[in-house]
């Protein structure tokens, strides 16, 4: 594995988004992963519709919250094609699901994997390099006050409440860390990103990790 790896260097990660006052982190992380994998496979990097997942993934609760694995399962079972953000734009509130014809262009999910990489973060690094940015669940209670730097304390494992996108890692310094894209805008953290120490599944970053296949 390379000592440092960042999918942003390959221009396959969309800019940081802002979910605003809507509990839609679960949809942003899933759509973020699909956008990136679509670009890794040779397509132009395009923003896909988070609002479509929010409105249409019926087992979830829109802005009141949801599960990344339920959303991925819905995408896999229904083979729904995610349309472009410009065709179904983000409103930061749950709405009625808009349907598109089968002939309408979009990106469909073929499969996904979900694993607990606790104690095996090196294997998680391998999966990131091999598969693309990863959807992860974290405990983000202390992130209310986060300004920057590498999180090493004040975070529990096994008490996840927030979904994020892991886009890279860096093991070249004293403290190896994950590079994680959040969906709280660019004024939060390190221009919208948070760094989490690798090892011990800090914030539960390795507890529930999904990779997508298109």
């Amino acid at each position, binding site marked *: 594995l390379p000592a440092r790896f960042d999918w942003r260097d390959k221009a396959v990660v969309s800019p940081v988004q802002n979910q605003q006052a809507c*509990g839609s982190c679960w949809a942003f992380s899933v759509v973020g992963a699909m956008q990136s994998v679509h670009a890794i496979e040779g397509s132009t990097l395009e923003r896909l519709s988070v609002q479509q997942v929010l409105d249409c993934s019926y087992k979830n609760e829109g802005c009141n919250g949801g599960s990344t694995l339920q959303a991925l399962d819905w995408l896999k079972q229904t083979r729904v094609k995610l349309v472009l953000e410009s065709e179904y734009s983000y409103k930061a509130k749950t709405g009625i699901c808009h349907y598109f014809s089968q002939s309408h262009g979009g990106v469909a999910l073929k499969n996904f994997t979900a694993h607990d990489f606790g104690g095996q973060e090196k294997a998680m690094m391998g999966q990131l390099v091999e598969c693309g940015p990863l959807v992860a669940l974290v405990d983000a209670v202390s992130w209310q006050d986060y300004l920057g730097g590498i999180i090493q304390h004040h975070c529990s494992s096994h008490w996840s409440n927030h979904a994020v996108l892991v886009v890279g890692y860096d093991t070249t310094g004293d403290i190896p860390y994950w590079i994680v894209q959040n969906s709280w805008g660019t004024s939060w953290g390190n221009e919208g990103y948070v760094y989490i120490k690798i090892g011990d599944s800090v914030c539960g970053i390795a507890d529930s990790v999904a990779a997508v296949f298109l």
Partner: protein
Amino acid sequence: DVNSEEFNRRHLYFQDTMKRHKYLNSFSAAPHSAKYGINQFSDLSQKEFRELYLRASTARAPSFSGLKTEG
């Protein structure tokens, strides 16, 4: 309105936040440690923050075996 109930409540939350920063930063001696301070969430109570932004359901995933199925 600085005399409103809302303003007073937000002011109290902000004061609580400042106390919390002191505690959180007391672990931040190393050069690359996380820093905690005032941001766009500083006038929210912890409960409000959780209810607005921490809405992902926990999902248990099987442990990564590291073994390939082929071969």
